């Protein structure tokens, strides 16, 4: 063990303990950083183990004993709580740790009733609470210990971290990250079919009152069409419909999905939300009809023009709604590719 303490008593407040324990960990950590997690780890995981700090993953509910407690008491605590080490602490200060090995030796040596202070492990490697989890992983790999005590900058024992703690938090974070990615991009699928027709199937989630992202789906659809040389006027009409339907869902619905479909020379924008539904669809499609509140109007929305605008720019228009269930709007378009000669004429 390279960073073992020679002092029998670990006193993190003293210069010696500080240099030999914390200092060693910090220095080694720097060299460990580039290969933490391994080169083949997905970037997302690498980012996570560098972003998360030891304090984010450690257990703070500590079972500790003081130096006078008998080794037998440590053995009982470990068995009752199914843990493999008890930190020996007094007044926030870490003095050592009683491990299963220490207990076995005490049983063999017949000193299980003697105080922990005399037989605990004092050659400790500790982590600091603001080190990245990548450092901790490296330490588990290097030292093969089941757990590390965690100190804060004031050298006070603030937690203990095991590999199980890290796994639990990483799994939780990964799940959240995947959910976020799924929400952010449900899928874009674009290509040219055997019949030379363009086909696209793009789905975009729309979140209630998320004005910051409102319009992004419409913009992406517009770029997809422009890049495939679709007539600019048709592209503009589709973009307007997509934007209006996207904004409608953002303003009025509980959230939903905007789907963009292209096949057989036709395009369709489908807005499907999960509620609350429109009680009077005919009224809602009339110019100027709106249920938007003042602050939405102050942004320049909610003028009651969304559905009429969509209807006007689309070749086919269909809306169905059930109060309490949700609304589905379909706006259809005949696609055509751009023809430079024709587009030179005023529209």
């Amino acid at each position, binding site marked *: 063990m390279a960073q073992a303490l020679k002092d029998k008593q670990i006193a993190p407040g003293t210069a010696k303990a500080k240099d030999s324990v914390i200092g060693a960990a910090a220095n080694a950590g720097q060299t460990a950083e580039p290969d933490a997690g391994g080169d083949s780890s997905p970037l997302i995981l690498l980012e996570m183990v560098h972003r998360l700090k030891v304090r984010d993953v450690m257990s703070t509910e500590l079972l500790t004993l003081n130096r006078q407690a008998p080794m037998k008491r440590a053995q009982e605590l470990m068995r009752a709580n199914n843990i493999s080490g008890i930190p020996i602490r007094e007044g926030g200060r870490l003095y050592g740790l009683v491990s299963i090995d220490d207990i076995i030796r005490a049983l063999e040596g017949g000193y299980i009733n003697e105080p922990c202070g005399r037989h605990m492990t004092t050659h400790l490697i500790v982590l600091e609470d603001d080190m990245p989890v990548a450092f901790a992983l490296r330490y588990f790999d290097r030292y093969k210990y089941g757990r590390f005590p965690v100190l804060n900058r004031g050298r006070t024992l603030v937690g203990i971290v095991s590999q199980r703690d890290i796994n639990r938090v990483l799994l939780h974070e990964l799940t959240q990250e995947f959910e976020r990615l799924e929400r952010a991009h449900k899928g874009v699928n674009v290509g040219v079919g055997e019949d030379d027709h363009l086909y696209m199937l793009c789905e975009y989630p729309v979140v209630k009152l998320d*004005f*910051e992202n*409102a*319009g*992004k789906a*419409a*913009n992406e659809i*517009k770029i997809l069409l422009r890049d495939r040389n679709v007539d*600019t006027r048709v592209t*503009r009409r589709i*973009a*307007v419909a*997509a*934007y*209006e339907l996207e*904004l409608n869902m953002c303003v009025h619905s509980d959230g939903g999905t905007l789907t963009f479909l292209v096949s057989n020379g036709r395009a369709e924008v489908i807005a499907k939300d999960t509620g609350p539904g429109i009680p009077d669809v005919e009224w809602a499609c009339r110019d100027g009809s709106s249920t938007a509140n003042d602050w939405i109007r102050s*942004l*320049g*929305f909610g*003028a*009651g*023009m*969304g559905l*009429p*605008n969509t209807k*006007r*720019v689309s070749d086919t228009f269909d809306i169905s709604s059930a109060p309490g269930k949700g609304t589905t709007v379909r706006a259809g378009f005949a696609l055509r590719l751009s023809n430079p000669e024709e587009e030179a004429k005023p529209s």
Partner: protein
Amino acid sequence: MTLQELAAACEGEILAAPDGEVAVNAAYTSDLLSDVMGNAPPESVLITVQNHLNTIAVCTLADIRVVLVCHGRDIPDDMLAAARREGIALLRTPLDQFHASCRLAALA
């Protein structure tokens, strides 16, 4: 009509200018973004008080090239960043929408 000419005509300042020439041949005055979306002509200047991110989104979709924000209203950083990203020129004038529109109309 260049951005400099537009700015000079309405005592305005240029906050974001895309690379290259900005071609505009029409203008539209409105604070209702749905109205803008439905009725503003492409290749145009939008004269408005709507100083937020969604204005840029609408202009991107409706092929509007220039946004002229009236009343000298503050431009939020995210709006400015979006304008630069989308290549939309962003101008600001101390005038109100009516007077700004009149000055631009006189240029035509």
